């Protein structure tokens, strides 16, 4: 056979690392291409932008809408105090936390389980790639989608809030976005873990959303005891957006704990993938 391909870099550990990294990049590229071809890369951010615009717009027009609802008796004076811009931003994040998260989780639920169900993974995983590179590539592309959507939606919200309600310093918005993005990343990571673990995509989405809800609930029920858990992050993000000053040491603890948990989940997912291959 002519043209020996890739036999030279097997012995040298450094070149093995780079070749392994290149394969990871190839897989990320493939994931992004898949997102683009299925239009996920377009519609998910658009949904976030829509949510982002809706919040300030509906707040601004709330008095008008109420007035035109028509059921009010003549002469009623509607007096709803216009909220601050920062408060509207915090409400936007809450919108992202319900509808936005639902959309993201549902869009990514089949990322591993779908490929295993269709059987593509059999043809991909016999290639000389590691389970962790495979999982990491999925994770990277999911996070890119989540952060891209969040940034687009939040920017739109910030712009409209400034236009209609009141300017907010962008630094404040930026900080809250970072914290909120970390929370979304954690939820994406849980989705990936369940998608690897469970056979059914729907079950994976259900488990991931349930898990996220549980984390948030626990953190809000016991803010003192569990303020350092990932579930507290969304609360911190709302506080930051609404110009509050959260306890910085608890916040940084939550950030560190979340990052560690995410890394742990990725390793667990890779391990699970390897194990389920051996058992099939």
């Amino acid at each position, binding site marked *: 056979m002519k043209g020996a391909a890739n036999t030279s870099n097997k012995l040298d550990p450094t070149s093995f690392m780079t070749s392994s990294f290149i394969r990871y990049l190839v897989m990320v590229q493939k994931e992004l291409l898949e997102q683009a071809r299925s239009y996920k890369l377009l519609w998910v951010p658009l949904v976030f*932008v829509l949510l982002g615009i809706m919040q300030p717009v509906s707040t601004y027009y709330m008095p008008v809408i109420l007035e035109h609802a028509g059921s009010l008796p003549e002469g009623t004076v509607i007096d709803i105090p216009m909220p601050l811009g920062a408060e509207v931003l915090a409400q936007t994040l809450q919108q992202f936390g319900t509808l936005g998260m639902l959309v993201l989780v549902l869009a990514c639920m089949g990322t591993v389980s779908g490929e295993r169900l269709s059987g*593509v993974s059999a043809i991909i995983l016999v290639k000389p790639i590691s389970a962790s590179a495979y999982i990491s590539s999925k994770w990277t592309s999911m996070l890119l989608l989540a952060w891209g959507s969040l940034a687009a939606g939040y920017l739109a919200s910030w712009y409209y809030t400034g236009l209609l309600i009141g300017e907010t310093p962008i630094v404040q918005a930026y900080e809250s976005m970072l914290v909120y993005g970390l929370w979304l990343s954690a939820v994406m990571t849980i989705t990936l873990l369940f998608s690897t673990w469970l056979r059914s995509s729907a079950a994976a989405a259900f488990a991931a959303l349930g898990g996220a809800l549980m984390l948030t609930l626990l953190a809000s029920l016991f803010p003192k005891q569990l303020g350092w858990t990932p579930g507290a992050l969304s609360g911190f993000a709302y506080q930051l957006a609404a110009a509050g000053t959260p306890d910085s040491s608890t916040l940084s603890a939550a950030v560190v704990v979340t990052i560690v948990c995410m890394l742990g989940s990725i390793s667990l997912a890779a391990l699970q993938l390897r194990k389920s291959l051996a058992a099939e």
Partner: protein
Amino acid sequence: MNESIVIADLLPILAPIIVIQLIIMTIALVLCAKAESTRGPKWVWVLIIIFINIFGPIAFFIAGRRNEG
């Protein structure tokens, strides 16, 4: 009298919302037309996409298509 002013004010602000909704709806319709097999009859999906604001297209993106892996 106050009403006409409100609508004139409203339009430039609401335009982006309408445009985005139209884009999402169009993508969904195009994908629905191109899909080889949908879960359930295609014409039902078309109605859902057109008449259920935002949630219709999203539902189609997530659950509407088969064998697209």
